[in-house]
């Protein structure tokens, strides 16, 4: 069997070192995508992300990556996976700093934890997730007992609740920590920083949906 091939989109604002090494550890063939690539030919297209929503989306648009992602998604057996900011970018818009439009691949907004008060609240640390009953799968639900690493102050709020695959708790807020729509997938946590369970999760992502 040939190795599953992952292409990692380079947003140029964050380090790709960890995600690249984690994908290798999980047994994938990995390539960091450069601007010149016209067509994406990967089993999994990975949109990583640390940083601000606005700089992320600006970069994608400036280099025409948004269109290339659209084209990629039309291909049979394509699979797009967004991590953290990469997951948030899949949605319609975000109110980080000012309202910015996203990739609009999944309906919904990206909001921050405390819109009501002025407190700055960042979700840093390890949490579990609870899978939505409709998505119950044996090989997936075993991950419910594991902790995953989160570091963010904004989260995606899918309009169609069907696109919420799992939720996690931060304070009193139960937010969407895994999203899914057809061949589009996203996690708010960082599997590449989630220890051995993170590597195991990366190995299984294609089986999960």
């Amino acid at each position, binding site marked *: 069997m040939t190795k599953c091939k992952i292409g990692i989109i380079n947003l140029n604002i964050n*380090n790709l070192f960890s995600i690249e*090494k984690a994908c290798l550890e999980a047994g994938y063939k990995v390539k960091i995508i450069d601007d010149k690539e016209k067509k994406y030919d990967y089993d999994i297209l990975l949109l990583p992300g640390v940083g*601000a929503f606005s700089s992320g989306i600006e970069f994608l648009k400036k280099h025409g990556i948004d269109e290339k992602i659209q084209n990629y998604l039309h291909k049979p057996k394509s699979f797009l996976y967004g991590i953290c900011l990469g997951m948030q970018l899949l949605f319609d818009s975000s109110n980080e700093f000012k309202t910015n439009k996203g990739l609009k691949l999944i309906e919904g907004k990206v909001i921050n934890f405390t819109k009501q008060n002025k407190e*700055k609240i960042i979700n840093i640390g390890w949490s579990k997730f609870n899978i939505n009953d409709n998505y119950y799968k044996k090989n997936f639900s075993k991950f419910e007992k594991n902790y995953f690493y989160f*570091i963010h102050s904004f989260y995606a709020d899918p309009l169609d609740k069907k696109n919420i695959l799992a939720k996690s708790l931060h304070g009193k807020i139960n937010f969407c920590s895994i999203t899914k729509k057809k061949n589009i997938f996203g996690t708010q946590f960082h599997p590449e920083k989630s220890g051995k369970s993170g*590597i195991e999760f990366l190995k299984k992502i294609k089986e999960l949906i």
Partner: protein
Amino acid sequence: MMKKNNKPIRIIPLLDIKNGVLVKGINLEGLRVLGIPEKFAKYYYQTGADEIIYIDNVATLYGTNNLSEFISKTAKHVFIPLAVGGGIKSLNDIKEMFKAGADKVCINSSIIDNVKNLEKAAKVYGSSNISVIIQAIKIQGKYYISKSNGRDLINKNPKDWAKKVEDYGAGEIIITSINNEGLKNGFDIKLTQNISNSVKIPVIAHGGAGNFKDVLRIIKQTKISGVAVASLFHYEAINNFSKPNPKIGNTNFINNYQIKKSKNIIKDLKEYLIKKGIEIRT
């Protein structure tokens, strides 16, 4: 006491690095060479650490930071968050750390000089990726903070300083008690309470962990999110490696050290804490 955000308490090995080797001192002085940092880091990752902190001990003093090389070597095998500090002065230094594979940077001296530097860093890289180290010293009952790893005393109260760095965008605070550091006699509970009660951002306690009870006590009596441990882990972990052959530094200890049968110290600590009812990641 209620914890912030009901998350498992993070158990974080802290590695002091000098000239490329792992060192450990007492009250941040009298450094002994213990071994190769990336070997310790990999071992800690494999045995259940929740995060790793690297601090370059002499970076500020000598105006250099050569951590990049170790970060890359470490990040290759370590799939938990890696925080890095020591001598970070500019946005460019921060960029270098992230490029090498760090997930967070820890800043102290350069923001004492100018707290606006913190605001800038938090804006560009996001608060959650910027941690602030506060090194507190107690002299005749009065608390001060310090720069350059305990070398320069600054007449500021640690609690006031903690609130200020929170306002300027710090994502997390690592509070080190220099008086307790390396002595293995327990944490400064009062100091840690003071800090963790006055800010909303996560606080990590550092300095003094000598046994499992010390760790339990600081978790139970304060609102910390994590515990940074050095000596207690390093002097046990050292038994897992063949002796290094460092060319520089105080090698007397390591050269005369007799390797013992090793215990899995992080696993043992975590099991102990879970038994005592603390939420811990396994």
